[in-house]
């Protein structure tokens, strides 16, 4: 099991109650369009769909090959018998990465991070929570932020480590936090009040 090394990689949802937009039920949406202008629009529409799908399921990281193998609904519409090819999915994720909503995790372009919130957005959400809960100038562990009881009902509970670290580094750059590199599984952060 890879659960230990990357706890926030979920297995792909096969079916779910996600409210797909009506264009998901249109046959040509699943064939990469040869005309550049049309293709550009199509990639944008897929990007929108994927970002809202991953936001709905709180998916931070996904493995394209895994999604294809399992026949996840995201790329495979059983109802109209249409699915995306691996090349088309890569083209879509290239678009997502190019527009700053994700990052490839490997050279083969199989695993990718999706940022339905950009790291800077997470940074300000987390910082706001620290301020509101009066935890400035105290030290929190990364584990507490991800898994602690205090964050249970918050959007960033169970946040992907990779994205959380990017957010914390962004706070560090702004002079609002300091990361303490202790042992690998026990990173600490001290947040500063801004006045």
């Amino acid at each position, binding site marked *: 099991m890879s659960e230990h090394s990357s706890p926030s990689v979920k297995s792909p949802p096969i079916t779910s109650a996600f409210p797909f937009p009506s264009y998901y039920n249109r046959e*040509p949406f699943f064939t990469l369009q*040869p*005309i550049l202008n049309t293709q*550009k629009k199509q990639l944008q529409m897929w990007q929108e769909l994927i970002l809202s799908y991953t936001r709905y399921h709180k998916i931070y990281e996904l493995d394209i090959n895994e999604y294809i193998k399992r026949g996840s609904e995201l790329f495979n519409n059983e109802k109209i018998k249409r699915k995306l090819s691996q090349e088309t999915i890569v083209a879509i994720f290239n678009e997502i990465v190019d527009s700053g909503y994700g990052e490839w995790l490997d050279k083969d372009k199989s695993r990718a991070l999706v940022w339905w919130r950009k790291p800077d957005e997470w940074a300000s959400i987390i910082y706001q929570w620290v301020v509101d809960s009066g935890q400035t100038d105290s030290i929190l562990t990364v584990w507490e932020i991800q898994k602690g009881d205090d964050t249970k009902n918050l959007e960033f509970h169970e946040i992907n480590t990779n994205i959380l670290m990017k957010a914390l580094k962004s706070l560090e750059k702004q002079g609002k936090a300091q990361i303490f590199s202790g042992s690998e599984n026990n990173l600490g952060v001290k947040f500063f009040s801004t006045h």
Partner: protein
Amino acid sequence: MRRGVGIQAIHKQNQQQKQLQNISEQLSSDNLKKISEQLTTFKTNLEEFALKHKKDIIKNPEFRKYFQDMCSTIGVDPLASNKGFWCQVLGVGDFYYQLAVQIIEICLKYRSTNGGLIELTTLTDHIRKMRGKTANEISSDDVEVSISKIKVLGNGYNILKIDSKKIVQSVPCELNKDHTDVLIKAQSQGGFIAVSHLSKMGWDQQRIKSVLDVLLSEGMAWIDDQSELKETLYWFPSLWSNTFES
């Protein structure tokens, strides 16, 4: 021998001509007066009618169509000017002007997915949504009237009759009968077409290719490589009953 033309005779002729001219001037100014009186009465009556039914004209799309038809049969165009009396009395000029802007906005919004073709009823639905619930009700007739006014701006806006559907074209692309025939055929079989369907209509490969290439490159058609028919299907988002993107 006739008497020559004396100076007297010329004077007499001149005088007669003058008298005749006077009479004719009198007559035409009488006529003009009468006509302008009639026009004034007519205008007053039309104004009275319009004012009396102002609410219906503005609120009720069906009534508005009848009023529009009535005006056009007697050669009056209440929409011709935005500054004229109709605008002051009814605000109809503004009404269609505003509608035209909304039409252009919606057409532009969806141009990248439908290539600038959108069904009239779909367009009307979108405009209704955009105007909100508090705005006056509009009909497809209103949209059509408004489009006929936008035509003045150039050859950009046009209405194609595809079977029973009316498709609004918002791009200045010359579509010939072959293109509309493809749309009609596609409409009759659920919104798509394949090369084999057109071959059956007796078209040669060259003709089919050139027609489909135009529709594809204009963004009016999307291809689909996963059909059970084992050949590429060409789909037309403009024939779908809702816009592709929503």
